[in-house]
């Protein structure tokens, strides 16, 4: 077995108020392993704003600025400007927001920061719903999922709209670097975080972040479900650097039913519905594969 490339040094203190098995906790941990301590983080309203615990406790070895729910893009723009004024251009500025704070209410400020080519990294930890307020749907909730605002009930009112493709939105902004990461693949995660740190301009990281209570998932299965998301191609690991698509984990594609069946939020789905999800996943993967191949051909 070859030794791990993940730094042993921890930049988060042990212990915070996240739920057992919280994926978002690991997202922060691996992110900081990749970025190091010359980093400042801005966090809007979301689970992570609560996880450090009550004032005056703090769970990270880097400073953290709290900002309004929809303001992360603006907050990192302000922090960047202030640090530049102070001559601290080498400090990495990070916006760390949930999916709701990113694809819904925060999309405007995010888009503005990306368009202004703000020199910062924006990380969206994606637990696919508004978890902090009690599992309401977000634009990032996948088709078919139960949430408290997409209840199943007799009318089967689960989420009927597909997940908003934030990576496509960010790619359309022409950002120099955008990548997906999963807590099940820490080597890949840390490598991408480091790469993002060493590129300048607006960088985007989309992190899959399993949430046991929100996904109706056994907290022991966080890593397993994240790995399954990658292996079933539900959440492909790839990066887009200077417009070039590179799939960093080429997988054979296990049946999506494996991924779905681990989570209570999908337990109501019929076989036909699962098959429909499979078709969507296959389609998205082949689009991604074609894009990656096209980039290979060009090189």
């Amino acid at each position, binding site marked *: 077995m070859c030794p791990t490339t993940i730094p042993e040094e921890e930049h988060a203190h042990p212990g915070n108020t996240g739920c057992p098995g919280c994926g978002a906790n690991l997202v922060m941990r691996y992110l900081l392993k990749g970025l190091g301590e010359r980093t400042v983080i801005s966090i809007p309203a979301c689970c992570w704003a609560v996880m450090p615990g009550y004032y005056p406790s703090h769970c*990270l070895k880097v400073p953290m*600025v709290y900002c309004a729910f929809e303001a992360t893009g603006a907050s990192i723009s302000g*922090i960047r400007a202030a640090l530049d004024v102070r001559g601290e251009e080498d400090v990495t500025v990070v916006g760390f927001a949930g999916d709701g704070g990113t694809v819904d209410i925060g999309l405007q400020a995010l888009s*503005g920061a990306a368009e202004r080519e703000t020199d910062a990294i924006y990380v969206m930890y994606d637990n696919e719903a508004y978890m902090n307020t009690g599992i309401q749907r977000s634009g990032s909730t996948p088709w078919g999922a139960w949430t408290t605002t997409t209840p199943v009930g007799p009318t089967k009112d689960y989420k009927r709209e597909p997940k908003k493709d934030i990576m496509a939105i960010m790619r359309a902004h022409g950002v120099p670097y955008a990548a997906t990461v999963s807590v099940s693949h820490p080597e890949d995660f840390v490598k991408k975080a480091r790469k993002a740190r060493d590129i300048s301009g607006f960088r985007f990281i989309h992190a899959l972040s399993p949430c046991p209570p929100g996904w109706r998932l056994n907290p022991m299965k966080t890593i397993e479900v994240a790995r399954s998301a990658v292996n079933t191609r539900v959440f492909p690991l790839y990066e887009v650097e200077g417009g070039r698509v590179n799939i960093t984990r080429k997988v054979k594609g296990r049946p999506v039913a494996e991924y779905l069946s681990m989570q209570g939020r999908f337990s109501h789905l019929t076989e036909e519905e699962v098959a429909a999800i499979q078709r969507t996943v296959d389609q998205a993967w082949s689009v991604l594969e074609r894009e990656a191949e096209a980039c290979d051909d060009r090189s």
Partner: protein
Amino acid sequence: MRKVMTGNYASAYGAKAARAQVIAAYPITPQTSIVEKLADFVASGELDAKFIPVESEHSAMAACVSASIGGARTYTATSSHGLTLMHEVLIWASSARQPVVMTNVSRAMAPPWSVWADHMDSVAQRDTGWLQFFCESNQEVLDTIVMAYKVGESRDVMLPAMIIEDAFILSHTSEPVDVPEQDAVDSFLPGFDPDIKLEIGKPMGFGSLVKPDQYMEFRYKAMLAMTRARTRIAEVEREFEEAFGRGYGGLLDEYRCEDADAVLVIAGSAAGTARHVVDELRSRGLRVGMARLRTFRPFPHDEFRALAKRIPGIAVLDRSYTYGASGAFYTEIRGSVGPEEDVAVMKNYIAGLGGRDITPKAIERVFEDILSLKSQSQVPQEPEWIGMKGMEGRMR
């Protein structure tokens, strides 16, 4: 150096004189020329600042607050719908105790659309924890920006400040303005050096979650800061007067009130007209005066209490209306003065909404009216709306 300039340019020159380091702004009529001028200053190298052309006012304020936490002196400017869109982050700024300075070009709110002078936007922010300065002239705009940084950044204050200039009447009207020498401003206003700011190697959370057993103390401290700002405003103004030879009368700028039978309370550019009317009526033997509400926050409670004990009649003119509760200035003055028997007869007048002129004639009529009232029982509960067209202005 004396220059002829608009209120908006006075704002831009004020921010430049104060050496704002991070400016984040979004355009809105009639604030645009402030932002354009500042962008020019930055582009030409005359002002060493980072200019962030944000995508909304909400982001403008959010960027300023975060930049201020980052240790930079920040400035922004907005108006009406931009200011009200910021509301959430205005409270964030004061609660984070960040001394952001902002010009609000006070303009009416839609619908119906109107881009003209009106204090509704500013008045609606009274509970956000900002210092609020209403200005009468372009010179005052420039000078107050410089003073506001000094007051707001005082260690025992640390609160944001809003400089209010009336849409078009100040924002787009040129007046001679003395732009103070940079050296003089630099020695009056030291650089922003907060005790606590973002620092690598000092991991802390700026604005984390607190329990019910902690929250009130944070608010109490902000309240004390606002109270201390009263004295600080006066001190800073005295220092300013010594350095630059100009003063503006503290929280409540009284004009010919000493022996007055009636005083008009007014804010913003219309105070200029009121001064003129006071002189005119005085020359006709009427003992009248004007008290210009210069700071709406902190509110000059003591000054009003003293005034109401001395003066038999007080007319309060609001350029905004708080639905179901009269004009905001009036309600607050009433709250300051209390229910004593021997205080002034007070009456509320609403005028100048949506940019309607507050004419000398209208002000004269207000004085005549207030002088004719002998007891509070003669004053109707609802304010009198001045100059209504084809409508009954007085409601009973």
